[in-house]
């Protein structure tokens, strides 16, 4: 597989199927939703669902928009992408423990991209900040090696 193809997977340049039809020049919108420790998320997750999502003061169902100012790229034989800013939930109260974030494509019928788990947390009238890893081959949030 060519490295250019790996990068083009992340930009939807190729379409082996029949859908979706895309315009050009505009990136999709990706969002990040938080899930309770009791929820079941993983590689089998196909789409965003409010089932098991956190609820609380100042948290909107569906989560927050992911900042996407850096296009996917490649280095060596790895294509990669990372959100260009931290994912932040400001002034929220999330009293029930949560331990996962779902990245999903809200421009494409909320199709799931990735699930990231972490130690269970609660937030009280505070801010939950997810700092992204270094955007490089092997360290980016998404890698196709």
């Amino acid at each position: 597989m060519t490295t250019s193809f790996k990068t083009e997977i992340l930009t939807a340049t190729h379409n082996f199927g029949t859908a979706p039809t895309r315009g050009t020049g505009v990136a999709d919108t990706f969002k990040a939703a938080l899930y309770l420790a009791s929820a079941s998320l993983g590689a089998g997750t196909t789409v965003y669902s409010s089932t098991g999502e956190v609820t609380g003061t100042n948290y909107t169902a569906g989560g927050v928009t992911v900042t996407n100012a850096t296009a996917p790229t490649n280095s060596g034989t790895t294509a990669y992408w990372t959100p260009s800013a931290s994912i932040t939930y400001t002034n929220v109260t999330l009293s029930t423990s949560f331990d996962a974030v779902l990245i999903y494509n809200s421009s494409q019928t909320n199709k799931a991209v990735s699930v990231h788990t972490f130690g269970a947390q609660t937030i009280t009238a505070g801010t939950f900040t997810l700092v992204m890893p270094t955007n490089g081959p092997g360290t980016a949030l998404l890698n196709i090696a």
Partner: protein
Amino acid sequence: MALVNTTKGEMEESLLEKKEGTVDNDNETVLWTEYWLDGELVHRSVHMTLKKFNLMGEAVAASF
């Protein structure tokens, strides 16, 4: 003077008991900050750096 957002509205930091901690493991680094008032938790924020990532490829299994 610094103001802290709490369950009781914004309060002066000096009126609150501050607790901080860190957790560092293979998956994430967590910095948490709590403020307490008379034994009641009134603020908790978490600053988390993810270390793991999603990897798919020809010779490397997915990490998630």
